[in-house]
């Protein structure tokens, strides 16, 4: 029987978190891991919250419930904080530190939570929580969109899910357009390094 892992991913419409979800699921399948994934994306284009799920190792459901995520990927810190109840006690968080403020915050009528608050909340449930400037790492690799791959690299490096960094890289080579491969491989390495340095 395969190791069973549930992964919760949350981000903001337009960030590309669903593309990242699909690639991670393909990486798992490429390693012979049973995979089911799901997403709610009705409003994905319009700046709403986008949640997705990857369940590895023989789960049948395409979603997970509160307190069930072994691994938590936050593509945006506010959404990390909002989605935290999905994390299993003792699970692992990998989150971006870089904010995409909602309209109400941009217009000064609502307040964006301090990053420290996000960190403290995550650390209160998680066994380990890793925060990295994924967008900046993406830019460092060559494209802002590659930030998601830095986050994926970090997620594979923390050792919770059976998907390996090599498996992720194999999926990047197999499924991305050739001109995007090198940039994203570099972004993955930067994400892995960010985790190893924490």
């Amino acid at each position, binding site marked *: 029987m395969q190791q069973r892992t549930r992964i919760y991913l949350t981000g903001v419409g337009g960030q590309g978190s669903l593309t990242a979800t699909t690639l991670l699921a393909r990486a798992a399948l490429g390693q012979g891991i049973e995979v089911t994934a799901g997403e709610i994306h009705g409003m994905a284009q*319009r700046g709403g919250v986008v949640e997705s799920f990857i369940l590895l190792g023989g789960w049948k459901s395409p979603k997970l419930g509160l307190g069930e995520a072994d691994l938590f990927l936050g593509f945006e810190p506010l959404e990390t904080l909002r989605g935290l109840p999905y994390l299993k006690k003792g699970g692992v968080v990998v989150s971006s530190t870089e904010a995409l403020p909602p309209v109400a915050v941009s217009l*000064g009528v609502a*307040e964006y939570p301090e990053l420290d608050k996000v960190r403290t909340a995550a650390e209160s449930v998680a066994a380990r929580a890793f925060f990295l400037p994924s967008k900046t790492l993406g830019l460092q690799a060559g494209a802002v969109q590659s930030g998601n791959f830095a986050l994926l690299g970090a997620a594979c490096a923390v050792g919770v899910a059976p998907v390996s960094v090599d498996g992720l890289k194999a999926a990047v080579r197999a499924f991305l357009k050739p001109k995007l491969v090198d940039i994203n491989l570099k972004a993955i390495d930067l994400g892995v390094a960010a985790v190893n340095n924490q």
Partner: protein
Amino acid sequence: MAHPLLAGAAGERHLLLGNEAIVRGALEGGVGFVSCYPGTPSSEVPDTFYRLSPDGDYYFEYSPNEKVALEVGGGAALAGAATLVTMKHVGVNVAADPLMTLAYIGAPGGLVLLSADDPGCHSSQNEQDNRIYGRLAGIPVLEPATAQECKDMARDALLLARRLAQPVLLRTTTRVNHLRGAVEFGERPGPAPLAGIGKTPMRYVPIPAVARQRHGAVLSILDAAREASEASPWNVESGAGDVGVVASGISRAYLADALAETGLEGKVRVFDLGFTHPLPIERLAAFLASVRTVVVLEELEPLVEKELRALAQERSIAVRIVGKGELLPRTGEYTVQIVARAVCAAAGADYAAPETAPATGNLPMRPPNLCAGCSHRAAYYAVRQVFGDDAYYSSDIGCYTLGILPPLKAADFLLCMGSSVSAGSGFARASGQTVVGFIGDSTFFHSGITGLVNAVFNNHDVVVMVLDNRTTAMTGHQPHPGVDVSLMNSPHAQLDIESVVRGLGVNQVWKVKPYNVKATMKALEEAKAAKGVRVVIAEEPCVLFARRTLKKSAPQAAYVAEQGEDTRRVVETLACPAFFKDENGYGVDENACSGCMVCVQLIKNFKARKRSA
């Protein structure tokens, strides 16, 4: 190279979206004809067929609405084509009329109707349970729960439909349409040969004498379908013990995971129902008789539950049946935890939900919003300036329903696709109030036209604003009869909305560009001063569609040249998501700004400049 869904060989394994798997399954079932009206969560099925159509050996069309789609598909199936018709659950309401008759006269080529239901109302106005349509029409229903089953059941549904010469309902839910999983391909034989009706009017024209006879035939075919259900590999029993669970739809997946988590795997008897109508009653009767308690898992309505209760009564089976109630709600979606709790309660096992982190309250929300530069915002702004809170706004279904949000507040009531014109007419007649209806271009062709015919015929007093953004924006930019057909990958004809409106007998028609605020307000002022049926067509391509498909770019972006009370007022009344506020005051995010220049027209504090990058 052709897409794997078309070219993939038997035995290949691919990670597919549930909706993509349905496409492959229909192809393996020999589909030759596909029609649809898009709607979440069904849209990726027709969109994939459309995308692949240049290489495909099937006919595909987007029809203007679900009734037409099912009639076109019904005609194709009568001509003998293996046919798939797709829609979201509420679309089946629109298509219910042809559906009921197709069930009577049959569809010899084989016709599968995909109904994509939406428990939880993720993107719909209700969560109606369309399994009921299978029972109402008297046709078989199959319900997949995994990507592999989406593929295999789409194939089997088509083969069954052809064998019975009767429509089959393939019923999915949002979770199933939008899951991803590994799918192993089977053979793809190419389109099934035509198996048409010939000239047999006393069989296929349901005049009362024929219809009376066909009602009996519907019931006989259902008997044959019940035999298929009894023997179906989609209806599977497993496990042991004196507690049973009968599960259908996505609840089967939740049950499998709940049993694995609670350690009850193998310790309860499970009846997995994939072929859910007609039920395999002989096998279910034996199952009921073999357990002390049975839990029935089905989202939404207690259909299987009630049939099992009736079955137990008929056969005098003493079994406790646990269905809808406190633990198993009739609203919304089920979860693994809901299922685990209910099954543990029935089995007398303890269940504790996992510990969770407390939710952080009062976080800023991210409500879906009209995009920066959306032409609907410009139109709504002008309408509010002219009509304010004095008019009632009859909304319709599309992105523009988001106009409900403040500060635009451009929606007071809404029924369904196309209702803005007709419900607006009735509201105005009964109340004597000014009513402005909003309808998108795709929705206008869907079912706004008949409302407009009625408004002209009955001389209603209503302003209709057609928000023509040149595409079906909400569901992913599908074509409709009004689009620029040069963008499509096969020959089509284009209908002009203004000509249609005038052709229907409306003679008070204005056509404006909503990005031109002054001209739009002038047209609305004139419409406000007039009486009777008035149509204002506001035409401007959807900003996403313009960027992605039409490859339009705006070299300039707006910026705030001067702060102050007027600037604040515009920020608050237009509420464009490109606006922001920082320590220097208000500004316009250049990356988010589409360059629509609506704000620039309102006050001199906003100005345009060349983009920096």
